[in-house]
């Protein structure tokens, strides 16, 4: 047992921290926010070329670095700190996992090296209008696209919502269910180039401007046999795997952001003087900051534990024990980090007073990211209900 970073992992963290703090400044984030794509392609290319983060979890056999979920969490933590605007979460936090776990050999050979080289971005789409029912549904019940077999392949129809970077990704990995079937076991996956005929994509401007959501409409999109993914027969299982890993990725970002708003608040409180003393000397504010720090530290433990579990899970996918361990660890991390970031970002506004309410200060960017990340893949109560069902039913 050894629950600390190796020297190599520390190096990754340091280089990620240094680089990202340098390039993803407040000005850079605000510039990216104002674009339709939501990120600066030149910066993304620099990240791909100089740091190769996009290749981190791509297996070496496909031109990647073949590193694990712990390294991925390390990088995501730093990205969360600076609210990096980039297609990283969609490409690496979603699509690479989908391809590695569910792609055919041909698809892996075709797409993974391109992703690793930084020449292809990708995302995963499964969420239809039903995703918004009952306060958020992110499992098979959210799937709205329908597939049908045709003479020489498949045909897809449907309407996807809330797809992260869906309007810019080069490759769309789409879950669909058999036409007129509702059961999970008819879920199938397809790797679809965004340029395929019949695909219409549209940015859905959202409150959190540091990450883009899109709507994708598929009208009789016809695909060859080779577009169908997976050695895995059970498409719903693949969805659970992707979602579990994505929860972990999101939690890592949330944890980094939660630490950053705490740091920003402490710095501000040290500087701001009222009643003749720095407001940092007021005990009610110190205690608030202490609670924020506790939440950050516990979040950190949650994320890195879940990352270790995810790593073990990927090493031995098929064991039922590993599946459950990952499901539990990811739900715990997502629950705790969602609450933490929302608490910390909300508190940060309060600790900043009036300036916390301005557009000019960055606090609101974290607050908005907090709510968006909290809701995506299910807020804390949904994660806790998942844990409760594992524990009590």
């Amino acid at each position, binding site marked *: 047992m050894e629950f600390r970073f190796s020297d190599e992992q520390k190096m990754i963290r340091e280089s990620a921290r240094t680089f990202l703090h340098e390039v993803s400044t407040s000005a850079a984030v605000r510039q990216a926010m104002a674009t339709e794509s939501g990120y600066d392609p030149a910066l993304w290319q620099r990240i791909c070329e100089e740091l190769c983060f996009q290749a981190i979890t791509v297996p070496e056999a496909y031109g990647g670095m073949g590193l694990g979920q712990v390294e991925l969490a390390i990088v995501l933590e730093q990205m969360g700190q600076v609210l990096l605007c980039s297609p990283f979460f969609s490409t690496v936090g979603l699509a690479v996992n989908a391809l590695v776990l569910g792609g055919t050999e041909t698809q892996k050979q075709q797409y993974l090296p391109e992703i690793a080289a930084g020449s292809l971005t990708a995302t995963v789409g499964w969420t239809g209008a039903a995703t918004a029912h009952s306060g958020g549904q992110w499992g098979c019940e959210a799937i709205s696209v329908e597939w049908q077999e045709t003479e020489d392949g498949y045909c897809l129809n449907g309407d996807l919502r809330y797809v992260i970077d869906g309007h810019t990704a080069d490759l769309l990995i789409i879950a669909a269910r058999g036409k007129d079937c509702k059961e999970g076991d008819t879920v199938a996956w397809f790797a679809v180039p965004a340029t395929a005929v019949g695909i219409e994509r549209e940015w859905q401007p959202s409150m959190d401007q540091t990450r883009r959501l899109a709507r994708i409409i598929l009208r009789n999109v016809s695909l060859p046999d080779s577009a169908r993914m997976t050695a895995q027969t059970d498409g719903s299982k693949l969805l659970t795997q992707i979602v579990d890993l994505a929860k972990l990725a999101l939690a890592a970002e949330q944890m980094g952001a939660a630490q950053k708003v705490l740091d920003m608040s402490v710095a501000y409180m040290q500087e701001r003087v009222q009643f003749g003393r720095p407001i940092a*000397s007021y005990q009610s504010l110190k205690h608030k*900051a202490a609670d924020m*720090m506790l939440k950050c530290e*516990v979040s950190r433990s949650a994320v890195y*534990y879940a*990352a270790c579990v995810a790593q073990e899970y990927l090493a031995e996918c098929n064991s039922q024990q590993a599946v459950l361990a990952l499901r539990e660890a990811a739900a715990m991390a997502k*629950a705790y980090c969602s609450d933490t970031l929302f608490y910390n970002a909300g508190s940060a506004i309060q600790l900043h007073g009036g300036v916390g309410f301005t557009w000019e200060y960055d606090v609101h960017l974290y607050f908005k990211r907090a709510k968006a990340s909290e809701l995506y893949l299910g807020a804390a109560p949904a994660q*806790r209900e998942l844990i409760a069902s594992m524990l009590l039913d």
Partner: protein
Amino acid sequence: MKLTFTVEDEAFRAEIAQWLRTNLTGEFAALKFRGGPGDEHMFTAERQRWEKRLAAGGWTGIGWPLKHGGRGCSIEQQVIFHEEYARAGAPGRVGHIGEGLVGPTLIAFADPEQQAKYLPAILAGTDLWCQGYSEPGAGSDLANVKTRARRENADNTWRINGQKVWTSLAHESDWCFVLARTDSESVGHKGLGFFLVSMHQPGVTVRPIEQLTGTSEFNEVFFDDAVAADLIGEPGDGWKIAMALLGFERGVSTLGQQMQFQNELDEIVRIAKSNGAARDPLLRQRIAEAHIGLRLMRYNAMRMLSHTSTESGPEALVYKLHWSSWHRNLGALAMDVLGPEAEILESGPYNLTRLQSLFLFTRSDTIYGGTSQIQRNIIAERGLGMPKEAKGNLR
């Protein structure tokens, strides 16, 4: 990062588990799950015999160095020991203050003669210890202790005068470590000494204090020219040593404590499943939250113990606040899961059930060992570099 234990460690786990299975039988079977916090007044004689059985098996001082008679176990093995100990439901240790606090402190600060005098009896489970820090005027503000230590010219011994309060298990103890002022002119952290005082002498009077549980685990202790058997370190070193001792409190035993928390949570889950509380959406949320909190506490402790350097990380700073708040919530959850049945006593006039005890006793978790407010001050000041609290002039 690795979460698995080595083959040798797993063998060690099998060894202690087997030992507990064989030994936690006969007269000791009744002690299972007894004697933890809130239950420390129960079965004391039997638990003292159990302590000796442990010692005979070589299971006391397992983390102490070999040359001091310990077992020299690695951190991992200590973790495993505490896990298996709690998993088996082995009873609360009457010797925990001696083994966990006094021993490591003496190993770090006492001279060899003193070490030879006290350590063997701690390991053998024969001498029990209590902690004489708090006083009526010195609670959170521990540096305000007024108890005095005076060097007797005739025989060169130190004599202690003053009053301690909230002294847990003083009525069962053979020895007390006492923080007292060696320099009567001094104030605050300076001029303090760390003394070892026998409880078996005319100058020491112990008066039990009844707790809100109706039981008495802590006491007032009066020192009236009591003889101190030893001063550890030099006069003036008291604060440094007293603080170092508190540092040992956050040691590996926390993982054993967590296993006991797990036993408590398991019981609550069992009740929730049987009485239908498990179907209530709000209680489901709270049970899940408790489960998550405990798991994360474990990972936090694992991070804490994985630190190689002597310097502890930020996760150690938040640990007490985290577990004590969590445990307090668990006590309330236990009552809410039971519903009105929570009110019914084990028996009259005031015998609490285990969960009632948990509910009531956990209110002290956020007070002793540094209150939650003091923890937050420390986190803000040491962890975040925020300004120190201003001191008043009424001390």
